[in-house]
Each structure stands twice: as C-alpha cells, then as structure tokens.
C-alpha cells in the first residue's frame, strides 16, 4: 500500500505517491544546495519547478493520475542531476581559485556600490563594521571619504560570475592572516592607483554611460542614503538609551515600594492615591511607546525595509498611548 500526496507545483495540482514525493523532494533540495552560491537562485529553481510541472502534466492527462517514482526518475533524467546542472566549476578548480582571494565589489547586497561588502569579504569581517567605519570616517573627515569611496568603486571590479563570487568570498580567514591580507590589500590598492591609466578610466566611464549628470545624481543619492543611515543610527541609539533608562527607573520604583518608603518622597506621585504599580505602568506606556516608535523608525531608516510594524499594531499602540496620556494628566492634576 502506498500513501498519496497532493502537491502544488507552479500553481498546478498533482497527485503523487509517497516514494515519488520523497524522490522529488530530495532532488529539489539537492538543486537548491548546488545553486546556493548562484545569483538568481530563486528564479532558476522556479523555472525548473515550472518545467517539472509541465512534464508532470504531460504524464497526468487523465484526471486523478498519480505521479509515480518512474515519472520522477524520467523527469530527473531529462533535467539532469544537480551536479550536471550547476554552473559551478569542478571542485578541483574552485579550491584552487579559493586559495587566491581577490577583491571584488559585492553588488548582491549593496547599499551604494558594494564596496563595503567586498572589503568585508576580503578581510573576512562582517560588512556592518566596514560600513560603521565608513560612516565614522564620513563624519570625521568632512566628506573626504566620499572621494575615496568613489575611487574604490571605480577601481574594484564587480563580482559578476559565480567563480568571481567564490573568489571574492575565499576561504575563511583566521586572525594571523588578516594582518597579511591588510598589507597585501594596501599594496594592491597603491599599485592599482599607480598603474591606473587615467584616460582609460575616463573611457570606461563613458562606456559605462556614467555621464556627469548621472554621477552627480548618484552622488546625491549616496549622500541621501548615508544621511538616512546616520539619522537612523542616532535615532536607534537615542531611543535605546531612553528605553533602558526607563526600565531602570521602573525597576527602582519597584525597589523603593518594596522597602516601604512613603509615597510622598517620590515626586509626582504626591497628589495621587494610585498604587505605585499603576503609576509604573503608566510611565512605561507613556514614555516607552513613543520611543519604541522612534526606535522602529530608526531601524526602518537603517535597514531600508518599509514595513517593520503593521498598521494595526501602530494604531493599537497609538490608542494606548493617548489613553495613558489622558490618565496621567488626570492623576497629576
């Protein structure tokens, strides 16, 4: 006896027996793994799924047809084993190229030109640190870093192909050769700056159709995006400090109340008969909610994700906050 599953492939419904299902799942998982490093991985997998669905629908002409293991095997034979499909070079070659790490720009996860990501890969540290350093340099050097950044942007090639990306990531770097890498990297850059054929760079600029106006536009976008990040960063910093302070003060409230210090000592609670915990709660809501908003807003600026909080959460928090404000004004008055 065999169990039958119902699956959706590319929005089409198929019945498939359990063995065939297991086989198909294994195949798709293997494919996913072999494309893990490839650009446009989701799209490729989607295309392959669509093709599998197409082939399945050729077998399943009759309604209620159950896809068998043989069908899946046929499909795999047509499409090819994951090792054959993947565009990666053979392991022999890729280990060789891995050993020699190269500096590329990582445009997959870029904010501006992918320079920070590329440097991060090259030195084996998280790109966040590079970005942080860049921002600090930007603030302290009054924009000189912008010029250096653009220079790096022009000089460092973009990692386009898979092998370039592999080479960009390279082998995991341990502390002892980070130093070496930095030295090598500096040498590289100085050499490159020396060797650069400026007329050729200019030609490249024209070839890439980066006209002056586009450069200016890019520069402005760059500055805007940096400003966003800086503002976001400070919003997060500020609101975090306030929120931590709030938690501490509430904790201290709790502490004082537990050792029975008379109400009158704590300022603002003087005119009210409210129990302390209510007051602490009002404080948390009254101060915590707006600063949580600032925190989320800062996070939005920093990560450039549009929605970190859905509307209903926003409105609920807003209503709670207004009620809290009203309550506070009543109790103090």
């Amino acid at each position, binding site marked *: 006896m065999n169990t039958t599953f119902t699956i959706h492939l590319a929005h089409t419904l198929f019945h498939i027996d359990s063995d065939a299902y297991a086989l198909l799942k294994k195949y798709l998982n293997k*494919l996913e793994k072999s494309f893990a490093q490839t*650009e446009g991985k989701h799209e*490729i997998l989607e295309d392959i799924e669509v*093709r599998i669905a*197409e082939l399945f*629908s050729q077998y399943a002409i009759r309604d209620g047809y159950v896809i068998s293991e043989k069908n899946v095997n046929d499909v795999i034979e047509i*499409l090819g084993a994951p090792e054959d*499909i993947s*565009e990666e070079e053979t392991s022999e070659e890729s280990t060789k190229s891995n050993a020699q790490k190269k500096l590329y720009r990582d445009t997959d996860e870029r904010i501006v030109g992918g320079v920070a990501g590329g440097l991060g890969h090259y030195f084996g540290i998280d790109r966040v640190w590079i970005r942080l350093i860049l921002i600090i340099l930007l603030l302290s050097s009054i924009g000189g870093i912008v010029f250096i950044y653009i220079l790096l942007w022009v000089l460092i090639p973009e990692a386009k192909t898979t092998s370039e990306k592999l080479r960009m990531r390279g082998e995991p770097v341990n502390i002892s050769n980070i130093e070496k890498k930095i030295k090598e990297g500096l040498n590289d850059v100085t050499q490159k700056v020396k060797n650069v054929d400026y007329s050729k760079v200019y030609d490249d600029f024209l070839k890439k159709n980066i006209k002056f106006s586009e450069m200016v536009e890019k520069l402005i976008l760059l500055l805007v995006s940096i400003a966003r990040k800086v503002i976001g960063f400070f919003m997060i910093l500020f609101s975090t400090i306030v929120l931590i302070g709030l938690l501490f003060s509430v904790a201290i409230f709790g502490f004082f109340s537990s050792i029975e210090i008379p109400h009158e000592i704590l300022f603002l609670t003087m005119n009210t008969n409210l129990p302390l915990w209510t007051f602490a709660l009002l404080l948390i809501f009254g101060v915590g909610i707006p600063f949580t908003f600032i925190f989320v807003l800062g996070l939005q600026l920093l990560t450039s994700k549009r929605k970190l909080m859905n509307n209903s959460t926003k409105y609920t928090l807003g209503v709670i906050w207004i009620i809290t404000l009203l309550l506070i004004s009543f109790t103090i008055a």
Partner: protein
Amino acid sequence: MNIENTKAQMRKGVLEFCVLKTLSTKDKYSFEIIETLKKSKMLVVEGTMYPLLTRLKNGGLLEYRWEESTSGPPRKYYSITEVGKKFLEELHSTWSDLNKSVTALTKKS
C-alpha cells in the same frame, strides 16, 4: 583529468552564443530554446539551460514576458535585447575567428 568535464567546458562557452543566436530570429519560450539546442546536439541535460537563461537575463542580454499556455503552467517567452544583439555580433565574429584558427591548426597537425 576528466574528459566529460573538458567536453562540458567546451560546450558551455559556445552555449551562450547558441542561445542568443536561436533567439535572434524569433522569441521563444524556454523549452523551445532547449529543444532547438537538443536537436543540434548542443545540450545533454535540460537543466543547464535554466541557470544560463537567468544569467543572460540578469546580464541584460535577454528579457522575458509571461504567456499563458493551453496545456499546463504559463510560459516564459525570452527575447533578445539590443545589448544582447551587440553581444551576439561580437561572439559571432569571435566564433568565426576561433573556428578558422582551430580548423587551420587541426589541418596542419
């Protein structure tokens, strides 16, 4: 050394050229491209084509649109872009040069 691997490498380089060429006259959906190439023995397994097409598309050489199909899921129809056409022209001349040199070389030895 693996002979299959070398063969695959040889084929791979020319494959991009062939894909662009098959699309230069008429838009095709992915399986039509595959079929054309299979007929001319350029392709062993279908699967290799999907990463290739995605790469060409991301490189701006191809673009696609969705079209409904009467039998099965909707199909991606690929067409060649202006950049792709220029790319193809260059590949074509490279190919002719390569062809000439290799033919001359194999005749000599």
